[in-house]
């Protein structure tokens, strides 16, 4: 995957205020943009993760049921 495709995603997250960005000096003393997750972002992550887990669990159930039935 090209690293550049990160930027549209990052900017979208920032627009949703799930992350915030800041210009800082990196360890190598270069100016760089640092992204940090916000409280809102954490909440969103938690709820998305939950949904994801439910989805995985549901799929898992379906798959086991199918396998069991076959």
């Amino acid at each position, binding site marked *: 995957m*090209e*690293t*550049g*495709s990160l*930027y*549209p995603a990052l*900017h*979208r997250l920032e*627009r949703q205020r799930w992350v915030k960005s800041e210009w800082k000096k*990196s360890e*190598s003393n*270069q*100016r*760089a*943009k640092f992204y940090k997750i916000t409280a809102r972002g954490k909440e969103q992550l938690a709820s998305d993760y939950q949904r994801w887990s439910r989805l995985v669990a549901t799929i898992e159930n379906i798959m086991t049921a199918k396998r069991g039935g076959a």
Partner: protein
Amino acid sequence: MNPFHLLRRKRDLSDEVESHLNMAAADYIARGKSPADAKKLAMREFGNVPLVVDVTRERWGWMRMERLTQDVRYALRTLGRDRAFTFVAVLILALGIGANVVVFSVVNTILLRPLPFYQPQNLVWIAPVPGTEGLSGYAYSVDALEDLQRMNRSYVDVTAYNNFTTADNLKLTGHGEPQPVTGIPVAGNFFDVLGVTPELGRVFTADETRSGGSAVLLSHAFWNRQFGGDRSLVGKTIRLDGSPLTVVGVMPETFDFGAVFSPGFKVDVYTAQNMEDIRSNGNTLRLIARLKPGVTLAQAQGEALALFPKFYWSKKVAASQGVYKGRDRNHLVFLKDHVSGALRQSLLVLWWAVGLILLIVCVNISNLLLARATARSKEFALRMSLGAGRARLVRQALTESLVLSGAGALLGLIFAYAATRWLAHQGSIALPLLNHVRVDGAVLGWTLMITVAVALVFGLVQGWKMSGGNLPDSLKDSGPGASGGRRYERLRGALVISEMALACVLLVGAGLLLRSFLQVMEVNLGFQASHAMSMRLDYDTHGPPIQQRAAFLQDVLQRVSAIPGVEAAGIADNLPLLRNRGWAAPKLKGKTDKDGDDPGSSVYMTTPGYFEAMGMHLHGRDFGWSDTTKSEPVTILNQKAAEALFPGDDAVGHAVVMAGKEVTIVGVVANVRDINVERASGWQTYLPISQDWDTSGAQLVLRSKLRAAVLAPSVIATVRQINPTQPAFAMRPMQEAVEHATSPRRFFAVLVGIFAGLGLLLASLGIYGVISYSVSLQTQEIGIRMALGATRERVQMGVIAKALGLALIGAAIGIVASFAVSDAIRSLLFATQPMDPVTFAGMTVLLLGVAFVAGYLPARRASRIDPMTALRGHS
């Protein structure tokens, strides 16, 4: 959306990408790559930089806006490249939009905007249905007003103003030489009922109304003009007609009595009407009432029908109860309808006319754009093949149209601003509220609306047409010789035909209105307005005994007649089209009035010489100074009255009863159009001032080939020899009164005429454009035909025939549409048939003539084509 903010974010993003690339490169260098390789690798790893930047920016959600600015910039660039086209298109749009804005501001002011009073929707105008009996017929007596105030249940209050006021009816003294001033006496509650508060001071108190005559309110304009806007004037005394009046207040600039109640009439001061002064003068008041909340006009009308028959013309005359009986004598309309109702149809016609102009403008611009589209079809095809979507192209075309119509609207607004300012200062046009016409918020809103609508119409037509083409064909199509260039010719032909049809409708409508106006100007007024002029004399009606007053008037006339250039001079208390009064008509001896069959009569008190000065045809003899209170009472009737009283007989020598007195008819004069130029005259009765009738003022009438302004100084100087307090009253040509009375018709006819001319011009431009374009496409073909022996004349005829063909189809459609239109404006016509053959034929010939010229110019060019040059190449 802040463009600078956007710019910063863009820079920020590129910084971010750059720092990413730098860090990635630094990583590669750390792993031992050369700096050049590291950079390349970092780039490869990152992907397509511009694409990432673009996609990221789209995430910001501002792309739409960015595309718009892009489109606008692109539109400006393309329009800038095609200067001639842009200039013509913007000019045409500016004319069309400007004309619409002007008309809308007039329509808005007169028809749509509420009157400038408090809750104007509750104000009611109480008047008889207009008849031929003159101003008195529109008015009510003091006793009737007071009874109505006391007995009604419908109104919050009823008020009135005095109907018998003319310009310069007062003189202001104590400020240099005596100044003419126009004042109107109003009931004390006048301003309270209208809900108008003074700018300075207060309105009249109940006390001032009762005693009357001691308080005065100034109009804003007069206060500024005469007293330099001196705020300390309130409470001070000014002298009007010799009596001291206290200035109690100044009315605001927004309150203009004349603009609402008597268009073209400038009021300087308002005085409190002393009702006792005019109680015995009969019908002198015009009534305005404010409805109670919840009371409808129909309820109030019902009450009026029951109440008015109980009122007296004068309580001293018991028999005068019931003169206001019948629906005709007490008709209620909303004040707004009274002010603008009669103009509604004319204004709507005007609105339609400019609407048609706008339509023609749209068609014209579409036509111009299509001509360009032919040239630009390659550009569009190219853009499509590079991936531009059809929607994007249509949007691009729309943006271009919006930029065009926006520019047109801006220029049109400038033009409209100037035009409305000019209109607002045309005091001589008798249209109500005209001085309030201006470009305001509503007008700007309307401008915006039509600007967008216009852009949508021609933008969509063009965008659709351009983007709908066949790609490969458009790309292949090259140069004017190829067939693709004619793609739009059929459509353009149809557009030109519709332009012609619209212009034809406008021309016929304008022709009918202009012809009506000319017919009105041709009306026999009964007097010769040209070379007649009038000036008010300072004359005390109620002063010394009649012998003395008559001697004064005789002296004035003698001296004034001696002024070189004065051909005739006379005096009357009222003048046609300026002011009049109505009495019960003269009757045959022994006849009594049956209810309702009194035709009424205008009454004029005159001196010898009046008829000659007015240029009226007289049969019998004029009054003489020997007609005095001691001699036999005499009268002169107009033809209408004479014929009605003595059908088939000469009225001269017969006696009639006038106002209870037996008078002998000594002469019969022509019917004068005294109330309305357009309506046939009613009965008119003339009585000699010297026989002491109830005279109200004196107007000196002169007949002279000299101009009024030239004659005025010597006349004033002459009158001042006898009466030093004669103010410098204006000398007014009688023609001015005629023009004032016909000014609304002139206004509408001229405006519609201008619009029709504009429509014709645009339509002929359309024809010219289409024909000359098709000539340029056919250069080669014409060259071949000429090489094969076609004569120049033949080529020329062919081109002209094409232009005339388009015009003929357009005119035919237009004529059919005009039948419907002319029928719709039937009520606006005067002595002109809606199907007036002269107008229809004349306008068709005019239309075809202009089409001929528009076709002749390209035809001449076609006939000058050199076959050799044409055959050799594309030129």
